[in-house]
């Protein structure tokens, strides 16, 4: 059953259509990542759900109750929607403990509740009386998460909460957050411009583009079978080839590639191959491709190969057994290609 249901949502700022005709369903306890380049409307969507903006059209429902329509809405402070922002937005004048119990209305056991939450987000209870500025960025985000969870929210919104952290910590905190939220069983929406973060966090991925839904689904399905070339290249490095389809195979310059059963109608087509499907091997003098350059960065190499009719392809591959630049090579593809509709 879906907790959050959005239908036909639209928002315009002056001449810019920030969000248009947007639908979304979020199942109870699930994690949805909304991903898109900056200006794609993802922050607008979050602010509409939180109640800081009002929609021009459409409807937002939470647990079957209407939160907002074009005419009216539940004020932000009555929505009981949790929010964790980019840099935590901890109250600098309050201690960690007071930050966490800020939203707890029942004062009596507020402190005990807040301390339990500190355990949940794996913060040492000894930090309770510290000030926010004495904590590291990652710890601050844990406090922000605990503070939002203290209200037992019906829905949690995460607005790029890991982007201010350095890479290693970011991944660690992302896993911890996903873990904490699934233990708390709160439906969550994460907004981010980082595709790896989105795919690593969510069970459902929503790609936004120019204020519209480009594609939604399970992360792996979206990666392997994107709706169009834009989604394909947004979610990862993509090699897109012209092809002639017949007998369930696509004839491309990389050879005859198998296609999924649903995409076998004969005719001209464009197909996607991910770089990790490519293998590079030494060839005799007869090889159709030639290794033009190879830039080695530790375990991987960024290679450029030139083929028939002056075509070049660049991709990342393993450095193990890499031929010398200038030598003829053979390119082979493992697994099926994806055909764009």
């Amino acid at each position, binding site marked *: 059953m879906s907790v959050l249901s959005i239908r036909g949502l639209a928002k315009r700022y002056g001449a810019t259509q920030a969000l248009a005709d947007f639908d979304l369903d979020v199942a109870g306890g699930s994690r949805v990542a909304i991903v898109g380049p900056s200006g794609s409307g993802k922050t607008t969507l979050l602010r509409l759900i*939180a*109640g*800081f903006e*009002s929609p021009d059209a459409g409807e937002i429902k939470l*647990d079957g*109750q*209407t939160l*907002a*329509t*074009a*005419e*009216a*809405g*539940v*004020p*932000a*402070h*009555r*929505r*009981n*929607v*949790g*929010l964790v*922002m*980019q*840099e935590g*937005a901890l*109250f*600098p*004048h309050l201690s960690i403990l007071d930050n966490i119990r*800020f*939203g707890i*209305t029942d004062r009596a056991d507020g402190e005990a509740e807040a301390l*339990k939450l500190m*355990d*949940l987000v794996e913060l040492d209870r000894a930090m309770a009386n510290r000030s926010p500025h004495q904590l590291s960025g990652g710890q601050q985000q844990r406090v*922000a998460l605990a*503070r*939002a*969870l*203290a*209200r*037992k*929210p*019906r829905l949690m919104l995460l607005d790029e909460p890991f982007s201010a952290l350095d890479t290693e910590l970011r991944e660690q905190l992302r896993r911890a957050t996903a873990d904490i939220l699934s*233990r*708390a*069983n*709160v439906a969550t929406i994460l907004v981010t411009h980082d595709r790896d973060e989105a795919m690593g966090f969510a069970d459902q991925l929503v790609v936004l583009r120019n204020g519209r839904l480009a594609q939604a689904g399970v992360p792996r399905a979206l990666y392997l079978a994107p709706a169009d070339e834009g989604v394909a290249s947004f979610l990862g490095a993509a090699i897109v080839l012209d092809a002639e389809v017949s007998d369930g195979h696509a004839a491309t310059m990389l050879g005859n590639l198998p296609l999924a059963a649903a995409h076998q109608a004969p005719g001209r087509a464009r197909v996607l191959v991910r770089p990790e499907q490519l293998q590079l091997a030494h060839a005799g003098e007869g090889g159709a491709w030639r290794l033009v350059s190879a830039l080695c960065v530790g375990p991987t190499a960024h290679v450029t190969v030139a083929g028939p009719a002056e075509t070049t392809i660049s991709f990342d591959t393993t450095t193990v057994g890499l031929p010398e630049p200038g030598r003829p090579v053979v390119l082979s593809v493992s697994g099926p290609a994806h055909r764009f509709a």
Partner: protein
Amino acid sequence: MTIAATIIATQMPPAPLVRHRRQAAHPALVAAALLVAAVALIPAGFVIWVLIQSGWDTASAMIFRPRVGEIFLATVLLQALAVPLSVLLAVVLAWLTERSDLPFRGLWRWLAVAPLAIPAFVMAYAWDSTLPMLRGLWPAVGISVLAYFPLVYLPVIAQLRRLDPAAEDVAATLGHSPARVFVTVVLPQLRLAILGGGLLIAMHLLAEYGLFVLIRYDTLTVAIVNQFQAVYDGPAANLMGIVLVACAAGLLALEAWLRGDRRYARVGSGAARVAPLARLGKSAPLWMVLPILVSLLAVGLPLATLTRWLWIGGTAALHLDQLLPALGQSAFYAVLGALFVTLAALPIAWLSARAPGPLQRALENVHLHVGALPGVIVALALVAISIRVALPLYQTVATMLIAYVLLFLPRAVVSIRASIAQVPLELQQAATALGRSPFRAALGTTLRLAFPGIAAGMSLVAMGIVTELTATLMLSPIGTETLATQFWSRTGEFDHMGAAPFAIAMVVLSIPLCIILHRQATHTR
């Protein structure tokens, strides 16, 4: 993990829907800002009313008189000499204390801000009672420079500290000598600070009364107040007020023209590095003469004089029976005035920081424009309006407080707006998302965190009120004896000993002003 599943989403009763407000600005705040703006327009309205009321013939006959021309020229001459000299002194001192290896720079920096604790009329009293032969233009220029140069010094050192030293390093690698780097790279970037501070000095000189009375130098403001004291609410004073407003407008236009459209934005975040100090070497003792001399003249002599009069007068001249009530009255006006000014400034400061828009900008400009009107004009306007429209208000505490609100509104708006804008909006939104109503969220986060800044602004206003002389003399109800009025009536009777305790009280009360301003200039965020 045993703590799992401690959190279960609560089923709350459905919250009612509320109609969306399309404007970000709350109507009640806009209404409050409109009300304050209407009050702020009183002096300007008065000027226009005087112009219309008197008609061209009367106005031209009153304004184009040789005596008015003489005073006008005296005012212009003073400005033309005192403002550039103050700028020159301030920039040289700023360079010495910020960018050279002059010994005891911290001490000289404090001493360069210290003159602000001594009201200009107290400084003039100190000089006048020590050297009574000081009369006319040059003494007036000298004391003006000593009293007001910190108004340029402060923004210049603040700007010097903000500059990215990388630009100077690059200029050096491009073959410029340190002196040329200062002139070609640093000085242009100080332009806005210099012009802003210079304008502030010019406006202060235009509005100054006490200093020039004591040095016997007749400026427009002196002439207007004298005229006003001879004939209350007379056309002559009002029409000279028009000339004064024209001068203020001229100064604003001149500053805008000099400022031009160029802005010097820093490209990139730059290095968080301290600029290297110029080595003065053998010439250091020579350079040291300047700060020593300035400190002696601007701080040393006034303080020595005040102490001397206090010493000669002994305890009898302390007049504790008058000093304490005067302190009380000054504190009463200062605290109440600062409170009212803050309340009046809050709506527009909030709107322009949190919900900017064309209406808010226009309203803000209406709030700020009063700052360009000298205190005499505000006083003349309030006298005229209370006599004609609201007689019960004539010579009351209320009128006095309205005058202080008008005089100090601009600086309160500027400091409160900056304090509010500094608090991230996200905090207020986080509080809202945690269930606080918008009002409580604003109160508990933004206003709570902006409070130190607002309080600093309030104390600046309070100190300004304690040392305000011109409007206080013109508007104070009969029987009002503040520090400033008591001091003034004693200097009028050449009672140097009797005036000293009141002067010292005002200086002591103004010391926090120096501390706040020094901190604001040196702690660049």
